[in-house]
C-alpha cells in the first residue's frame, strides 16, 4: 500500500519537472518583446526596461532558468502584475473557492452519474436504460457555459429565485453559499455526470457478465447483495481511475463556469490574468494547478489500491 503511493510519488517527479519546464518555457515563447506587450503602447523606454528587469528578461536564458528554479524551490513564483500580490498567495486565496465549487460538482457527478449508470446497466435495453443514456449523451454534448446561461436566464432573470452570479463563502453563510453555488455546480457537473453514467453503465455490464457474479447468484445471495456488494465492488475499481480524470475536467471546467457566474476562484483569476497579459500569474497558476492535479491523481491511485487487493498486495 505504502509502496504503491511511494512509487507513484517517484513517478510524479519527472512529470512535475517537465511540467515546470514547459511553464517556464512558455514565457520565453511569447513572440516579440513581452515587456512591450505588458507595458502597452504608451510605455516609456524606462518603463520597458523596468519591466524587463522585473521579469528578469534582460539576463541570459540559463541564468533566468536557474533563478526561476531557485525561487521555485523557495516557494516563490513571482508577483502578479495585475494584483500586485505574490502568485502563491493569490493562488492560495482563490483555490479554496474553486475547490469548494469542484467538490460540490463532484458530489453531484458521483451521486447522479453513478446511480444512473448502475440503474441503466441493471435495466439494460429497457426504456429506463435508453432514457438514462439519452440524458448522458445530452450531458456530454451540452457545453457547460450554455447550460449555465440557460439556467441564469430561467432561474435568475425570469424567475428571480437565485442570484445571477457572485459568491458567498460557505464559512460565512452556508445558505448563501448554496444559493450562489448550486447553478455553477450543476452546470460544471453536467458533462461529468454524462461521462460517469456512460462509463459506469458499460463497466457494470462488463462486471455483471463475470463468472463470480454467477457464483454469487448460485450461492443464493439476494439480487441486492449480488449487485451492491459483488458487482459494484469490482466496477468501482475502473471507475475510480475515471474519477481522477473527472477532477481534472472539473478544474478545467471551473475556468469558464467561474467567469460566467463571477465567482472569484482560480479559473476566473487565470482568465483575467490571460486577458490582461499577467504572465507571472498565468505561469504560476498553471504550474500550481497542475501540480495539485498530479497530487490528486496520486490520491486516486491510492484509492485504487485500497479497492483492489490485487494491487494492494503487489510486491514492490
Amino acid at each position: 500500500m505504502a509502496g504503491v503511493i511511494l512509487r507513484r510519488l517517484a513517478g510524479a517527479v519527472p512529470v512535475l519537472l517537465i511540467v515546470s519546464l514547459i511553464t517556464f518555457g512558455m514565457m520565453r515563447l511569447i513572440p516579440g518583446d513581452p515587456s512591450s506587450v505588458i507595458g502597452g503602447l504608451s510605455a516609456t523606454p524606462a518603463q520597458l526596461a523596468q519591466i524587463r528587469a522585473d521579469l528578469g528578461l534582460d539576463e541570459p536564458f540559463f541564468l533566468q532558468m536557474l533563478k526561476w528554479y531557485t525561487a521555485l524551490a523557495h516557494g516563490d513564483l513571482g508577483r502578479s502584475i495585475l494584483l500586485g500580490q505574490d502568485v502563491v498567495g493569490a493562488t492560495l486565496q482563490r483555490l479554496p473557492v474553486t475547490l469548494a465549487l469542484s467538490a460540490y460538482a463532484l458530489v453531484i457527478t458521483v451521486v447522479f452519474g453513478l446511480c444512473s449508470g448502475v440503474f441503466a446497466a441493471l435495466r439494460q435495453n429497457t426504456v429506463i436504460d435508453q432514457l438514462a443514456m439519452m440524458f448522458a449523451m445530452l450531458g456530454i454534448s451540452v457545453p457547460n457555459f450554455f447550460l449555465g446561461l440557460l439556467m441564469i436566464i430561467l432561474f435568475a432573470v425570469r424567475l428571480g429565485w437565485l442570484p445571477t452570479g457572485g459568491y458567498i463563502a460557505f464559512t460565512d453563510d452556508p445558505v448563501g453559499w448554496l444559493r450562489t453555488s448550486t447553478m455553477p455546480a450543476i452546470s460544471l457537473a453536467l458533462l461529468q455526470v454524462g461521462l460517469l453514467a456512460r462509463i459506469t453503465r458499460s463497466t457494470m455490464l462488463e462486471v455483471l457478465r463475470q463468472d463470480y457474479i454467477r457464483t454469487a447468484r448460485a450461492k443464493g445471495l439476494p439480487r441486492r447483495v449480488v449487485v451492491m456488494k459483488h458487482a459494484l465492488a469490482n466496477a468501482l475499481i475502473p471507475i475510480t481511475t475515471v474519477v481522477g480524470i473527472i477532477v481534472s475536467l472539473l478544474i478545467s471546467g471551473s475556468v469558464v463556469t467561474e467567469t460566467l457566474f463571477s465567482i472569484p476562484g482560480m479559473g476566473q483569476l487565470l482568465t483575467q490574468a490571460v486577458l490582461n497579459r499577467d504572465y507571472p500569474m498565468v505561469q504560476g497558476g498553471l504550474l500550481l494547478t497542475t501540480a495539485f492535479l498530479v497530487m490528486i491523481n496520486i490520491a486516486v491511485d491510492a484509492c485504487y489500491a485500497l479497492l483492489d487487493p490485487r494491487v494492494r498486495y503487489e510486491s514492490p
Partner: protein
Amino acid sequence: MSLLEVRDLTTAFKTERGEVTAVEDISFDLDEGEILGIVGESGSGKSVTALTIMGLLPQPPARVVRGSVHFAGELLTGMSETRLERIRGAGISMVFQEPMTSLNPVLTIGEQIMETVRAHEAISVRDQRLRAIEMLDRVGIPSAVRRLGDYPHQMSGGQRQRVMIAMALACRPRLLIADEPTTALDVTIQAQVLDLLMDLRDELGMAIMIITHNMGVIAETADRVLVMYAGRIVEQAPVARLFDRPLHPYTRGLLDCVPTLEQDRNRLVAIPGSLPEPARRPAGCRFAPRCGHRIDACSAAIPPLVAVDASHASACIRTDILA
C-alpha cells in the same frame, strides 16, 4: 420420489436469427446420495441443463419452453426469484469450471464462504466464521484460520477450486452440481479434487450431478451416466453397464476415443465430422450424419429414448439390431 426430477425440460435462446433450442426433452431422476454423470461434447447442452435447473440463465435471452424440474417435491421451473434464492446454495449448490474467475477477486475467501452461510442461516458472525474454518479444513486447505483473510489471487487454481467446493457445501446442500469441476486444473490436481468430492459425498451424503466431457472422470466418479448429444439425451445407463455394453453409436464412438493401455495409440478412432450448430441441427436423429450405422429411417423422426431394461435406455431406432 426422487430428490431431483426433470421432465421434458426444453430451453431455448433468443438470437439474431430467431429462437434456437439449446436443450430438448431432457428427463431424468436423481436420488439422494447418488452421483449422476452427464457427459457430452462442448455445446451438447450439459451446462445449459444445469443452469436451467439452478434458474441461473438470464431470461431473456433464455426461456424454458416446456418441461419441469422438481427438487425435493418443489417445482423449480417458474418459481419466483426470491424463493429460488432460498434454494440456491442451501438445497442445491453449484461448482463451476473456472476456479480462477469464479471467485470474487475483491472479497476475502472467508467473507465469500461466510456470506453464503449468512444468506441461508440465522447464525452469529462467530458461528459463520467457525463454519468457514470448518469447511476450509474439510476441503483440505491447510491452516484454514490464517487463510480466511486471503484473497483469491493469493491461491493456486486447485486451492481456489477447493474454496469453491467449501463455499458450495457450507450450507449442507442435498444436491451439488459440479460443472466441469476439474477441466481447468492440472492433471495431478484433477485427481485430488475428484477424490475430495467422493470423500465429501461419503461424509455429508449429498447427491452430486457431475458434468464433464471426460469419460475418465465419469468412470472414476459416477454411479449412473447420461450421454448428451446436440441438446438431447441419447443414452442413459449405470456406469459399469455403459462402459461394458454401450448401446448408442455415439456412446460407442466416445468410448472408442478413450485410449486403453493394451491398445495401440494409432488405432484411436475419432468420430468423423463435428457437432452440428444448434441452429442447423439435422432432421431426425441428430447424430445420423456422423453415424456409421445410418439408414434412411434415421432422418425421418427424432428417435425417442427407449428403455431396453429397468436401468438402461438408448435413443436409437436400430438398438435391437446393433445391440
